[in-house]
């Protein structure tokens, strides 16, 4: 273990400004993507994001060709070419984004194909069209399919803004993030209602269809900006996974948005560190010394996937861990209530002062094993409901009140069953032994009222009064 830590630190000692710029650019790109992603996930249109990342390809190629053509015609000067190219690129992506949505709807309605199948038809066809365009126009376009698919975040510092050391990609993704943040803040209300209840939104004058197209356009533009950094495939991870992770962690929209940004932002440093550290650690040990680092974009997708897995496990209230803890607490509470019930019944039978009998009952009348029983009794003693005095366990006054409630629940439930169910008398007990742990004072009150304040259960035992 110390060896691994030392090697990790050693590997990270080589961190240069280049690495910082990679992380900053990737984080900005991921955060920019996560904002439209939140609304795609909430609208249950996550796969539309996947589709858009594919259909943008023909948009990019056509925009490239258009920009070059305009350049040749002399409509845009070489000085402004770089800026104009980005403008045309965004425009192309947005048009294709809306076209994807419209085409999908057409195929769905006119072709009478199920909605997700329509999406599948449209985006694969447009993607294929994009690939063909790249092939046929390859001579004229300095567009490398590899760089579209996988991104080139490792080389961001090559292309910096003149006069500053700031990579162009960082500026671009930063701007996109700012625009998206602005849009979310300004149209928060409209985005929320058209995602939650599009029909009502439309009747209120907020055209949900137009909002859908706008979201598609913004998503496509965001994707195009992020392509150069993280590639067209991995960008889907940044679009969907942060939002899905945040939805697990919060039930408030603004917090979901903030958490998505945080998860997306965090995935960049995590991913880059993993890309530097993991290959030598893993492959070096396996004897593949030639593997020295991995794709940062790829590792970001892995990192964000790990954050999602952590959320699944740790989410407050709904996470796997929370459910395990909740279940464990419930099991101990049920065992403790069973102990209370046993001691209360011993008191009823006048055996509470006979140590041998009480211990015998505690050991044999409970379903819980010795470990759980011990845990339950310690809990009761800590709560001041039980004392171990001399050789015998006794209920405290507080414990007796709690025990009375449990026994009252049990016997009221039996009386209730006797009234409404055709059951043999010896069947009541098992049901009541389960139900007694879930019946609160309000339910007891209603049950007693319905049964006309019964004094005896079906076995003829007295139902204790509420304390």
């Amino acid at each position, binding site marked *: 273990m110390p060896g691994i830590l030392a090697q990790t630190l050693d590997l990270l000692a080589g961190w240069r400004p280049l690495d910082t710029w990679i992380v900053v650019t990737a984080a900005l790109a991921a955060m920019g993507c996560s904002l439209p992603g939140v609304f795609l996930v909430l609208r249950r249109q996550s796969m539309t994001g996947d589709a858009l990342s594919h259909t943008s390809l023909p948009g990019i190629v056509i925009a490239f060709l258009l920009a070059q053509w305009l350049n040749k015609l002399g409509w845009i000067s070489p000085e402004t070419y770089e800026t104009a190219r980005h403008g045309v690129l965004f425009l192309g992506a947005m048009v294709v984004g809306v076209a994807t949505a419209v085409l999908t709807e057409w195929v769905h309605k006119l072709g009478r194909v199920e909605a997700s199948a329509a999406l599948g038809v449209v985006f694969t066809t447009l993607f294929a069209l994009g690939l063909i365009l790249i092939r046929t126009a390859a001579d004229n376009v300095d567009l490398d399919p590899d760089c579209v698919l996988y991104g080139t975040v490792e080389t961001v510092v090559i292309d910096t803004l003149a006069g500053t050391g700031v990579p162009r990609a960082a500026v671009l993704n930063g701007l996109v993030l700012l625009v998206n943040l602005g849009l979310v803040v300004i149209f928060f209300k409209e985005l*929320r209602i058209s995602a*939650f209840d599009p029909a*009502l939104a439309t009747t209120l004058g907020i055209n949900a269809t137009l909002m859908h197209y706008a979201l598609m356009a913004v998503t496509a533009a965001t994707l195009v900006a992020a392509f150069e950094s993280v590639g067209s495939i991995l960008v889907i991870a940044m679009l969907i996974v942060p939002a899905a992770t945040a939805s697990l962690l*919060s039930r408030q929209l603004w917090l979901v948005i903030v958490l998505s940004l945080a998860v997306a932002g965090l995935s960049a440093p995590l991913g880059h560190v993993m890309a530097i550290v993991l290959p030598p650690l893993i492959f070096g040990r396996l004897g593949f010394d030639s593997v020295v680092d991995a794709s940062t974009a790829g590792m970001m997708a892995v990192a964000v996937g790990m954050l999602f897995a952590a959320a699944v496990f740790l989410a407050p209230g709904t996470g796997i861990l929370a459910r395990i803890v909740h279940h464990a607490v419930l099991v101990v509470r049920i065992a403790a209530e069973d102990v209370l019930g046993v001691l209360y019944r011993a008191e009823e039978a006048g055996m509470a002062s006979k140590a041998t009998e009480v211990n015998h009952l505690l050991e044999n009348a409970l379903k819980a094993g010795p470990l759980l029983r011990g845990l339950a009794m310690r809990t009761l003693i800590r709560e001041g409901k039980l004392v171990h005095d001399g050789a015998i366990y006794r209920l405290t006054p507080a414990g007796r009140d709690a025990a009375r409630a449990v026994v009252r629940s049990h016997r009221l439930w039996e009386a209730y069953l006797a009234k409404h169910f055709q059951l043999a008398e010896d069947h009541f007990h098992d049901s009541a032994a389960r139900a007694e742990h879930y019946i609160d004072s309000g339910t007891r009150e209603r049950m007693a009222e319905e049964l006309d304040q019964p004094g005896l259960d079906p076995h003829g035992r007295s139902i204790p009064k509420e304390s």
Partner: protein
Amino acid sequence: MIQRSNPEPFTEHPASSPLTIHDMTVAYHRKPVLWDIDYNAPKGRLVAIVGPNGAGKSTLIKAVLDLIPRASGDVKVFGLSYRNQRSRVGYVPQRESVDWDFPVNALDVVAMGLYRKIGWCRPVTAKYRKIALEALDRVGMAGFARRQISQLSGGQQQRVFLARALVQDADLYLMDEPFTGVDAATERAIVAILRNLRDTGKTALVVHHDLQTVPEYFDHVMLLNMRLVATGPVQEVFTPENLRKTYGGKLALLDRVGHQMTLSGGGQ
């Protein structure tokens, strides 16, 4: 065929009728699901829209609200097209039409009814939250304002929807099955609110499934089965004979002609 036993809608100027549907046909894939609907809603009345599954009850409401296209016919709300009268119409969609896991609380949902009043791009301020809270109080849900909507029971969710309609302060309400899947207490609460709306001169058209409660809850009834079978005051129109006509299966010929329209690609 269509009985109009109630003269009242015609004694008033048409402009004051909350809803006038003129010869409306709605089709899915060219196959009409609602044929030639002619209807005048009476002002200040509770109207039950009643009919079997697939009769086009929800379709009628959605077509009136321009949510789905009409193949023919037109709709007037207080004498003008719906476009110009949006603010006077409140809509309560079916509860199942939205995702109740959505990260919003009850107050957020009720405040949505105010979005038109608040206007584009403006935030929901304290003033509007207060209005929304008052509406929640009216439906007996003030204690649940901050509750995430997935943690509400079906009846409570329906009350939230109703509160959202109340804050719209509309003159005509179109409600799609507000009574479906609610508990007895919620049913009573909804009825009380409907009566209160009526007493303040508002009109509500409510898709309703429970035939037994129609005479108790509603003044008027619209019997629908792809066509308008009968409309008018409950005591005159809600007769066993009309119900038999409404529920006694679809008109075989209507179905046949509709099918042929689909096949031949006509029907507009």
